C-alpha cells in the first residue's frame, strides 16, 4: 500500500467529519475520567440521540487531553461558522444542557405534557422533552461554565507536539490521517535521503526533551554513520519523574504521532527494528500504542515494506516495571534486554554500542513527537520558535499550588512568570509564590527573584535546576523547603540502583542528615557536611540519577538557606514556612 491510498482514507474521514454540522468533543483522558468524563460522554451520546435530529447535525467524539485538567471534565463544541466553545467542570446534567443548547431538535411534538407520560414515551423522548424545557433556564448557568479560549491559559501556548491531542480520537488511525498524519513519513520516504532527514532535524535545533537536551540531529547522524548491519530505535516512554505526565498524554492521546516520528527516525538512521519502552504504571498508554501499532501494520505503515517502499521497519512495545533509573539510556537498554535496569559507564555511547551492542538511537516520546511537524513545516519554521540555543516548544505538566493546572505546551524562552501568573492563573488562597520546581528529583527549586528567567536549557541549568522532562510543580509559602528536599532525597534513595557507591551510600546519608536536621537535632556543622556530601555525590556518581540527585537539596540550600539555618539554631522548633 502506498501513501496515496492512505491519503484517500484520510480524505474520506475528513469528508465524513465535514458532513457534520457540529462536533462535540469530550475529553476522556485520565484526569477528566476521574472527574466523571465517562458518564458525561455517555450522556452526550444519549442526549444527541434524544434530539432525534438529522444524522449529520451532530457527532460526539471521544478525545484525549485538552490541557486544562483542573477544570475537567472538559467538553468542546465546534460548530460550522461559529467559534468553538469550551465547557469546564461538566456534570451529567450540564452535558444535557450543552446538547440542548447546540443541537437542534428533530421532528417531534414539542408539547409533551408531563402528566401525559405513558409507556409509549421512551426515555429518549423524555430526555428530549426535559432538555427543551430547561433550555431557557440554563442559558446563564451554562454561560458560567464556559472557559474562554482567549484565556491566557490557551493563548500563550504554542502547540506542536500537542497539536492533535484533544482534537482527534486516539484509537482511530483514520482520524490521524484526516489531520495530515503520516504525510511527513511519506514525504521523507519519497523525497529525502537519510542524510537529508538527519540534517533537517539538526537544522531545526531540536534537542532531547527527556531533560539532557542533546541535539537530536547529531545523535541521529552518529547512528546513521555507523556501518553496522543491525541498528535499533528506542522510544523512551519511561516517564518516572513524579509530577510529570507529558509523555503519557502524548502516547495516550496521539499515539500515531509518536509512531510516525519513530519510523522517520528509523529511516534516517537505517534501523529496521524498534522498541517503545513504556512505564508499567501507564496501562492505557500501553494499550493505545499497541492498538496504534496493529493499525499501522494493517495499513502497511509498519512492516517489511513501509508504504510500499524498500524500507522495512517493525516496532514493539516493552513494558517497564517501575524503576526510575531506567530513564537513563544505558539502564533502559538493559531493561529492554530483560535484565536489571542498571546503567553502565559511557562511552561507549548507545549510538555506537547500544541494544545488544548494536548502534541505537534513544529518544524521548516528546522528542519523537516533534519530528513529524519539523518535516512537514520545515526546520526553518521550527527554529523560528524559541531562543538562540533552545528551539521549538516544550510540554510541561503544570501542577501544584496554582489556579489552573494541566498540560501545557509553551515556546522555549517564555518566562516562568508568564507560566505561573498568566497560564497558571497565579497562586490561590491568598498565598505567595515560593518556588517553581523543575526537573523532578533531578532538578531544583527556583525562587521568586528568578521568575523572569526565560525557560530554556541553559538558563535553568545556570540556576541550579534543569529543564528535565517537563514536570513543573509550583509551591506556595506553606511548603517547608527542607522537608520538600527530603521528599526528593527519599525518592532518590529508594530509586538508586545500587551499582555505584556515591549514589547508593550518599543518598542514604544525605537523607539521614536531612532527617536529623528536620527533627531538630542537627548542629550548625551538619549544614556544611550536607553541602559537602551533596557535592561529592554530584561529582562522583556513575549516572545521571546520582549526579543530579543532590540538586533539590543544593538548590534549596542556596535559595532558602534560612530555612535550614533555623533548623540548627538551638531552642528552635521546626515550623513550616511562614504559615
Amino acid at each position, binding site marked *: 500500500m502506498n501513501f496515496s491510498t492512505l491519503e484517500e482514507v484520510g480524505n474520506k474521514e475528513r469528508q465524513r467529519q465535514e458532513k457534520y454540522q457540529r462536533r462535540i468533543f469530550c475529553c476522556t483522558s*485520565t*484526569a477528566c*475520567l*476521574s*472527574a466523571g468524563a465517562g458518564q458525561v460522554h455517555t450522556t452526550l451520546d444519549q442526549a444527541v440521540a434524544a434530539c432525534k435530529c438529522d444524522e449529520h447535525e451532530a457527532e460526539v467524539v471521544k478525545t484525549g487531553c485538552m490541557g*486544562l*485538567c*483542573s477544570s*475537567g471534565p472538559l467538553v468542546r463544541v465546534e460548530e460550522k461558522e461559529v467559534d468553538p466553545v469550551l465547557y469546564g467542570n461538566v456534570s451529567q446534567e450540564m452535558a444535557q444542557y450543552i446538547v440542548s443548547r447546540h443541537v437542534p431538535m428533530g421532528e417531534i411534538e414539542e408539547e409533551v405534557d408531563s402528566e401525559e407520560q405513558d409507556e409509549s414515551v421512551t426515555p429518549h423522548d423524555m430526555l428530549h422533552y426535559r432538555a427543551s424545557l430547561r433550555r431557557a433556564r440554563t442559558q446563564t448557568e451554562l454561560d458560567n461554565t464556559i472557559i474562554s479560549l482567549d484565556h491566557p491559559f490557551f493563548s500563550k501556548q504554542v502547540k506542536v507536539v500537542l497539536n492533535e491531542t484533544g482534537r482527534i480520537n486516539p484509537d482511530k488511525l483514520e482520524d490521524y490521517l484526516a489531520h495530515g498524519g503520516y504525510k511527513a513519513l511519506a514525504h521523507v520516504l519519497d523525497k529525502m535521503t537519510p542524510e537529508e532527514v538527519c540534517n533537517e532535524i539538526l537544522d531545526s535545533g531540536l534537542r532531547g526533551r527527556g531533560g539532557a537536551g542533546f541535539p537530536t540531529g547529531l545523535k541521529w547522524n552518529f547512528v546513521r554513520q555507523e556501518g553496522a548491519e543491525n541498528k535499533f530505535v528506542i522510544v523512551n516512554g519511561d*516517564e*518516572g*519523574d*513524579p*509530577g*510529570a*505526565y507529558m509523555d*503519557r*498524554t502524548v502516547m495516550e492521546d496521539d499515539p500515531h504521532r509518536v509512531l510516525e516520528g519513530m519510523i522517520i527516525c528509523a529511516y534516517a538512521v537505517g534501523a529496521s527494528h524498534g522498541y517503545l519502552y513504556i512505564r*508499567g*504504571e*501507564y496501562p492505557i498508554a500501553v494499550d493505545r500504542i499497541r492498538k496504534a501499532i496493529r493499525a499501522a501494520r494493517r495499513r502497511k505503515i509498519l512492516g517489511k515494506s513501509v508504504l510500499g517502499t524498500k524500507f522495512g521497519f517493525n516496532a514493539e512495545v*516493552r*513494558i*517497564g*516495571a*517501575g*524503576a*526510575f533509573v531506567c530513564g537513563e539510556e544505558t539502564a533502559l537498554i538493559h*531493561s*529492554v*534486554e*530483560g*535484565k*536489571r*535496569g*542498571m546503567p553502565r559507564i559511557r562511552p561507549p555511547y548507545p549510538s555506537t554500542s547500544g541494544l545488544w551492542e548494536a548502534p541505537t538511537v534513544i529518544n524521548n516520546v516528546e522528542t519523537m513527537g516533534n519530528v513529524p511537524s519539523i518535516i512537514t513545516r520545515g526546520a526553518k519554521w521550527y527554529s523560528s520558535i524559541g531562543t538562540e540555543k533552545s528551539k521549538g516548544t516544550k510540554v510541561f*505538566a503544570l*501542577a*501544584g*499550588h496554582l489556579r489552573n*493546572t*494541566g*498540560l501545557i505546551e509553551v515556546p522555549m524562552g517564555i518566562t516562568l512568570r508568564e507560566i505561573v501568573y498568566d497560564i497558571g492563573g497565579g497562586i490561590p488562597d491568598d498565598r505567595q509564590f515560593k518556588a517553581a*520546581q523543575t526537573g*523532578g528529583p533531578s532538578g531544583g527549586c527556583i525562587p521568586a527573584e528568578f521568575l523572569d528567567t526565560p525557560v530554556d536549557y541553559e538558563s535553568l541549568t545556570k540556576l541550579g535546576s534543569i529543564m528535565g522532562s517537563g*514536570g513543573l*510543580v509550583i*509551591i506556595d509559602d506553606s*511548603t517547608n523547603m527542607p522537608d*520538600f528536599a527530603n*521528599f*526528593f532525597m527519599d*525518592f532518590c534513595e529508594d530509586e538508586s*540502583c545500587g551499582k555505584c557507591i556515591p549514589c547508593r551510600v550518599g543518598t542514604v546519608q544525605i537523607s539521614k542528615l536531612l532527617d536529623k536536621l528536620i527533627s531538630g537535632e542537627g548542629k550548625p556543622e551538619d549544614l556544611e557536611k550536607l553541602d559537602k556530601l551533596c557535592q561529592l555525590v554530584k561529582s562522583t556518581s556513575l549516572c545521571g540519577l546520582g549526579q543530579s540527585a543532590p540538586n533539590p537539596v543544593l538548590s534549596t540550600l542556596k535559595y532558602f538557606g534560612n530555612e535550614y539555618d533555623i533548623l540548627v539554631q538551638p531552642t528552635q522548633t521546626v515550623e513550616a514556612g511562614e504559615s
Partner: protein
Amino acid sequence: MTTQKALSEEDQVHPSGDERYLSLDRTMKQFKYEKDSLLEVLNAAQEVFGYLSKDLLIYISNQLNVPMSQVYGVATFYHLFTFEPKGEHICIVCKGTACHVKGADRIIQALSDEFNIAAGDTTPDGLFSLTIARCLGSCGLAPVIVLNGQIYGKETPEAANRRVLEAVSRSKDELAQTMEVG
C-alpha cells in the same frame, strides 16, 4: 473445580493442574522462549497470578532457561513486582510531587492508622492493601488515590478512609453471609 475442568479437556491440561500456567505459556511462546523476554514474562505472570510466588519464579526460570538467581534478581529490582498476594481491596495513594505538596502524606497516614498497617502492607485478614505509587500522572487532580481501579481526585484523608472502610465492610458482610449459609 477448575482442576477437574482442566483435566477433562485434554489439550488444555497443564501438568500443574493450574490453568493460569497455560496463559503464561502462551506469552512465553509468543516471545519464542527468548531469554531477553524475561521482564515481559514476569509482567505477564504478575498480571495472571497477581503476585510472583517462588514456584512461579522457578517455573519461569526453567522455561526460559535463565538461572533462578537472575530471575530473582530482575524480579526484585523493579518496584511493580510483588512476592506476596495482595488484599482483596487495593488502595493506591499517589505520592508524586504534586500530590505530596497537596497532602498525600496525610492520606497515607490516615489509612495506615485506620487499618494499622504500614504503606505497602496488607491487613492480616487479606481484605485490604495499602500501596504507594510514584506518580500516577494525574497531577492536575492532586492528591489522587486509586481504589480498586477507580480514580478519585482532590481527595481528603477523611473521604479516603470512608471509601476504603465502605469497600472493606461490604466484603466483611458478604463473608459473614456466606459463613452463615455454609
